[in-house]
């Protein structure tokens, strides 16, 4: 009889169990629900309905646009900060970095509520729902952009800049030929972590947009109150959008030098 051998692989069992029960099975359930009707008969009805309904397609488009703007704004804010923090010889730069990470330690709902009051005080609440939504998303996801950028920028070898200077490169060339190409993995992981959740974070659009802005996450939530099958179909379409965008940004390649990406 073979004695069961234990190895370090045994440690993977809890994770494998978790994976099967909380990732794979739910996905299969969504798949089944998406392609069945009320009586659990196989049907393409939801699929056809989804792609023939301008509202749903528009909502997907709106969500993508909102997420895109959020991502671009986050990148524009985060890149200079991460660059300065990573390249400068500032003594207390950890303090500055901490200041950006610190809000993440406060409950998310509380923060959104605080912004809501702030916007009300400025007079924007209820006046500029889309702007408020994007602002809230940027505020919420900014740390997720800064951290991976910071870690990749930190890693760039200083001798590369020296070499660039030796070869007569100016600061601009050094940036376009060294910094930018080498920080691409950080940009990619930052973009992934901002773009995808901001398509579905309907708490922000509900609180700051007074529920007047509908993004795809809200749709899924509402459909699961009344029609699981359509809700699953919307979730599945979102999954495909996510899959495609992850594929295009190369998110499936393992990125060893992007620490902090798993935050």
């Amino acid at each position, binding site marked *: 009889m073979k004695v069961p*051998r*234990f*190895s*370090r692989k*045994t*440690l993977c*069992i*809890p994770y494998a*169990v978790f994976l099967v029960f909380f990732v794979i099975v739910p996905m299969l359930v969504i798949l089944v629900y998406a392609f069945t009707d*009320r009586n659990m008969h196989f049907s393409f009805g939801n699929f056809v309905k989804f792609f023939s*309904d*301008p*509202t*749903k*397609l*528009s*909502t997907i*488009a*709106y969500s*993508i646009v909102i997420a895109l703007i959020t991502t671009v704004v986050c990148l524009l804010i985060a890149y200079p900060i991460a660059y300065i923090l990573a390249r400068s010889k500032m003594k207390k730069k950890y303090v500055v970095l901490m200041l950006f990470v610190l809000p993440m330690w406060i409950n998310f709902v509380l923060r959104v509520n605080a912004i809501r009051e702030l916007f*009300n005080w400025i007079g924007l*609440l*209820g*006046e500029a*729902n889309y702007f408020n939504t994007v602002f809230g998303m940027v505020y919420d996801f900014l740390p997720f952009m800064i951290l991976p950028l910071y870690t990749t920028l930190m890693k760039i070898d200083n001798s590369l800049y020296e070499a660039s200077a030796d070869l007569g490169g100016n600061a601009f060339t050094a940036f376009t030929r060294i910094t930018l190409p080498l920080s691409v993995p950080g940009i990619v992981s930052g973009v992934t972590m901002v773009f995808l959740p901001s398509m579905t974070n309907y708490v922000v659009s*509900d*609180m700051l*947009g*007074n*529920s*007047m802005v*509908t993004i795809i996450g*809200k*749709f899924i939530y*509402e*459909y*699961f*109150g*009344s*029609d*699981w099958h359509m809700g699953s179909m919307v979730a599945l379409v979102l999954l495909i959008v996510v899959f*495609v965008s992850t594929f*295009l940004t*190369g998110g499936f390649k393992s990125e060893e030098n992007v620490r902090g990406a798993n935050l």
Partner: protein
Amino acid sequence: MKKRVLSVLIAGAMLLPTLALLGGCGGKQADVVLKVYSWAEYIDEGGEGSYLYDLLAEEGEEPSEEDAPPILDDFENWYEETYGESVRVDYATFGTNEDMYNEIVLGNEYDLLCPSDYMIMKLAAEDRIEPYDPSFFDESDPNNYYVRNVSPFIADTFENGTVTVTREEETETHSWSEYAAGYMWGTTGFVYNPGHVERADLEELGWQTFTSGRYTNKITAKDNVRDTYFAALGLTYEEELLALAENKDEAYNQKLTDIFNRTAEEYTDAVGDSLLSMKANIYGFETDTGKADMVSGKIWLNYAWSGDAVYALDEAEGDGLLLEYFVPGSGSNLWFDGWVLTKGVEERGTKKAAQAFVNYMSMPESAKRNSYYIGYTSVIAGEEMLDYAKYLYEDEEAEDAAEYDLSYFFGEDVADPVIVAGEDQRTRRQLFAQFPPEEVMERCAVMNYFDADTSERINELWSHVKAESLDAWAIAVLCVSAAAIVAFVLFVKFGNKIDFFRRKPKKGYSLVRQEQMK
């Protein structure tokens, strides 16, 4: 070897929490475990702000938390004393009727639920709940607090309301009262800030308040399809409703109820237009921010349930702001939440405890405690509840004090079902919101549940209203640009793998493949 032992140990340790979860939670040993599933913050939880606590404080004593226990503890003690059996209540809460429905459909076993009117009908129609025992309605049993104390108005409503139950392909018609015992009830209307909104204006506008343009961006609607659809029905058919009210006859309430249940396809276009013009005029859709936004002054008008209205009025009063409540003259919504027994409650042996729970909640003392704690109106009437209403609202000193007749609710058995109060309380403040007069209830309608097809159609309509719809050309442009982006990225990634796109080597050079270089 040592390493392996260690890894097994760690793996075991990681699994432990899972096992603990599977083992279920411990807790007090009891003969019966009663699983109750109700709304969050919908029951007396004791402590500060509870009826018993405030009563002691009013008498000049300094109450402690023990003087005002949660009502569930008191029920457990009472049950053991009365029936000689110990009971433990597992009390779980939900946020929306739909959440609760999903849980039930998924097969979670609860004994007692507290859904709203339409959800009771839906659960009954789908044969998911069980009728009460005939013994529950026996008025001679002193422990049957529900039948002995329920308001005749609610009892009539429950008696007259019918639902068609489908069981094994056969349909039977039953009245709501067989399946449900009431808990809280009320109306829907507008909480408004009289500093900015004229009462006369509201009376003139009715449901048109939403779209008149006078309160653009200062009024909220509910972020749930049923309540806002109801308001849109009022908005769409207001003239017809007012004409009905002009020539009231026997069937007035029935005709009004029919209008407020117009969910057939022929009506949805008109209602959809109303919903869109509502959306163009409101500040936002809300589920629970409305109360706070009224108090902070962000909005002037909040479409609300009467219970929330009472709560908002109380809160604002604490901040020195007097808010008021208004029910549109053309008609509004009568809603209620009630206790229902789930299927299989008999087999699980919890039916007796479940019915006892309902009876305990229907004791005047409990009704006062719950109602005081949450601000909603209990379905329980009787002498003691009238005294409680008087304790809250009677004010003979008020300048314009007059009698406020509540005989329709408290019934004829109660001596003098009349509260003397000032004009503001009688027409627009907490008394009016919590105990609406009969003339308001005449024009209030219960909205039935939507069957599966209707529900699907109205949800589609709702999503069209909530989300922005782009024109077909805009969608086409977006699709084409998305495809272009995908194609571009693919080209950048894989373009050089295709011979056609690969850069040609300069003359005189030959291409060296990477593999060859290795």
